[in-house]
């Protein structure tokens, strides 16, 4: 750094805050004199603003969602329960059992056991398919890394969030469950909602 630049920046600082180094300075900002309209505004202004919101909501009606009869809508990029996909044209599974999702998973909740395709009776498009594909949703933290890791877009995060169950074992989702067309029960939030 060169010296001239140094000194000039120092000069700027000192002109703005002339007492920076030497004295403690207390700055006092004075408002308008009390009394009159100004005084009334100062006393009730914020309260009225608050009441405006209150009355507006009264007019709007109740916002409580009657869950589970009604569902909370989610944003389009909401990360809910996973889905596995098939190719639309051939019906083959997109997953080739590469285990990259399992590698990416920070919660270690995905288990993939691969097997070799029989070219006569294919499960997936490549040489390899997932014979076992399990996600332990009890452990899943819904971070979406599996989706990012997947080289074939075979796994995506869906919108479903109603996954609670009575038994931990039932939270281990198998390939068949993940491949099944999920019941679209979760409404999406509309634009700007």
């Amino acid at each position, binding site marked *: 750094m060169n010296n001239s630049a140094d000194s000039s920046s120092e000069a700027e600082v000192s002109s703005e805050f002339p007492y920076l180094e030497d004295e403690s300075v207390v700055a006092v900002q004075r408002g308008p004199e009390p009394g009159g309209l100004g005084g009334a505004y100062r006393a009730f202004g914020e309260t009225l603003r608050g009441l405006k919101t209150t009355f507006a909501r009264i007019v709007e009606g109740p916002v409580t969602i009657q869950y589970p009869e009604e569902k909370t809508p989610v944003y389009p990029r909401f990360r809910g329960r996973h889905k596995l996909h098939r190719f639309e044209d051939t019906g083959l599974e997109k997953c080739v059992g590469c285990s990259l999702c399992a590698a990416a998973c920070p919660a270690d909740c995905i288990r993939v056991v691969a097997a*070799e395709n029989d*070219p*006569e009776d294919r499960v997936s498009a490549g040489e390899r398919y997932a014979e076992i594909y399990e996600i332990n949703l009890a452990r899943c933290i819904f971070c979406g890394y599996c989706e990012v890791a997947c080289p074939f877009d075979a796994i995506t995060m869906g919108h479903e969030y109603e996954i609670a169950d009575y038994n931990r074992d039932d939270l281990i989702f198998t390939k068949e469950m993940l491949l099944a067309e999920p019941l679209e029960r979760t409404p999406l939030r509309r634009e700007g909602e």
Partner: protein
Amino acid sequence: MSAEERRRLIEAMRPEDAEPVPQLHQVDVPDELRERIEAAMAKYPQVRSAALPALWAVQRHYGWCTPEGMREAAAVMGVTPAYLESLATFYDLFRTSPVARHQVLVCHNISCWLRGADDLIGALCEAAGIDAHEADHGGANSPDGEVFVKGFECMGACDLAPMASIDERYYGPLDTDDARAAVEQLRAGSEVLPGKALAERPAAGGPEPDPDPRVKEVESGDA
């Protein structure tokens, strides 16, 4: 290959199917072939140098490097047949599939191509009834099994361009009429392209020029 085919293939694989060095009693080597190979083995300081001569001998004997021929040569030489097959597929002049009686290799490299090699191949193939593209990309046999035509890389006879090597003898320069004639002659078993053979061609510089005075000296002796 389906999984089922593959499974059958694997199940059919027996340890004895592997091909280590065959023993002589396991093969039936024709005497003439064996003599040729053994003569070649004796010519070199190390036996393996005889690998190319051995393959040449197999090719001369069977017309091409048959798997059985390579096994026989391997048994005589004490190497694995795989070793010989590796060589046979490396070198362009060895055929590893059945080949017609007469072999016509047509140069399609730069000098010959500049002077019409593609036309020559076309004419030869037309006369022999062969697909020219196939002949130019790997070689093809005529349906009657008489002529094999293959587009070949430079054969070191650019002065004859466009040229062809017919049954290991060079002929050139050839035009499309020569091509038709050559195929006829091969089929008929008569002399091929008289007058076009390399052996009959004089040096390009024409008749012997006056000897350079400095060179004369070398030529003064007699036997």
